[in-house]
């Protein structure tokens, strides 16, 4: 669910459309956008305080066979929340493996590639200190 929440709207929806098989479902809670107050810790480790809110869209649905899917995704895309909840529900059905290989694995690969690229660029800006030799050693 974390992977789905963090994914870019276009990445998730693209993979979901390619997967192509939207099962029949009924809404338990139709998509709704709201705010979540993000908290931090004083000094990074102490008591908590409120930093500010972020937008989140959530929904819940159930498949015709009864599996319930929930989604809490970052941002305001209702179609992303719907796809995420359907994927969550499908992961409890016989389609688990198909969904994992068609959607979750590629999504995880995209995320990890994006992270690694930033980490590699950051590593290239790491300072190598050197001391000039002076005096007799």
């Amino acid at each position, binding site marked *: 669910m974390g992977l789905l929440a963090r994914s870019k709207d276009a990445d998730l929806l693209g993979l979901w459309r390619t997967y192509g098989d939207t099962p029949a479902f009924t809404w338990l809670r139709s998509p709704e956008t709201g*705010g979540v107050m993000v908290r931090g810790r*004083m000094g990074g480790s102490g*008591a908590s305080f*409120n930093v500010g809110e972020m*937008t989140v869209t959530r929904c819940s649905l159930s498949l015709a066979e009864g599996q319930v899917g929930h989604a809490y995704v970052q941002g305001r895309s209702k179609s992303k929340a719907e796809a995420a909840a359907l994927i969550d529900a499908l992961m409890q059905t016989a389609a688990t493996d198909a969904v994992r290989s068609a959607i979750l694995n590629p999504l995880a690969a995209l995320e990890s590639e994006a*992270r690694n690229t930033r*980490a590699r*660029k950051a590593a290239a800006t790491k300072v190598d200190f050197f001391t000039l030799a002076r005096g007799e050693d």
Partner: protein
Amino acid sequence: MYVAVKGGERAIENAHGWLAEERRGDTDVAELTVPQIREQLKLAVNRVMAEGSLYDPDLAALAIKQSRGDLIEAIFLIRAYRTTLPRFGASVPVETGKMACDRRISATFKDAPGGQVLGPTFDYTHRLLDFKLAAEEDVPSAAEAEARTAATPHITSFLQGEDIIQREPVSDDAPGDLTREPLSFPAGRDVRLQSLARGDEGFVLGVAYSTQRGYARNHAFVGELRIGRVAVEMEVPELGFAIDIGEIELTECETVNQFKGSKTEPPQFTRGYGLIFGQSERKAIAMALVDRALRWEELGEDNVGAVAQDEEFVLSHADNIQATGFLEHIKLPHYVDFQSELELVRKLRREATGKMQEAAE
């Protein structure tokens, strides 16, 4: 006093029509798109998210477009939108120690584990206008090196090992929330930090600068400054456990401040803390300096009467939307107020000139 003023509907409508045209500017120039603002004016977007107190880059970019680049107006739009959102809950406090850092520097320890990582910084540029940017051209890709996989521990954790820096009291109590209860004084450090995090960058910078110039000086070193992404987790009632609900970019600054000890505390290093949405290190450093100055009472320091020590002054004036709302309302019609002032001054003047004439005769 406000009075109901009738009339002016057509003037207002036409003014707004002209505003829309002026916003668009010369139609021979291509129109800006919201994604262009989000990607290419990212630091403006970050500021609108931080002071609008809502992390949503697309909305902040839209607000900047709508406000013609007036960032305080854009923050106003975001604050207004924010009030329409139902609150789903609060996150688990973010773990900045697990941040995927784009930038991480320390002014106190050269050889800190994890190293000094500069990231995409303006530092060490010559601040000369780059006329090449006036022409569109492709940007070469940034250099890459082998990525570090080890965690990047907080610098203060090393000082804590030696027990030479103040420890932050840990607590899981729900913090005060300015968006739910009005400010009251004394405010706790939780509310102070929330207020500074969404406060005006210029104001917080000015107050922080005043401490450096000697008004409640607190000798700050930037122990650590880090910018990067952290996961946001929330307990979801439907599931009964916490899940990631997204990932945000944050700037965190921890200052390490000289402290000779006080009536209640032994000599040790003390700390100030700044945490801001997006990449905003000027604001994060300023927040940490002001946070430290406001902790005078807790540390048993003297109140020297400096602005930076005055919680009520700082918190009451840090919010640029409150400030601009009150400031700008004085341009709205005050015809009756002024009419009564006019009558009063005329009357006083008549009486005064009458007395002067009598004295002359």
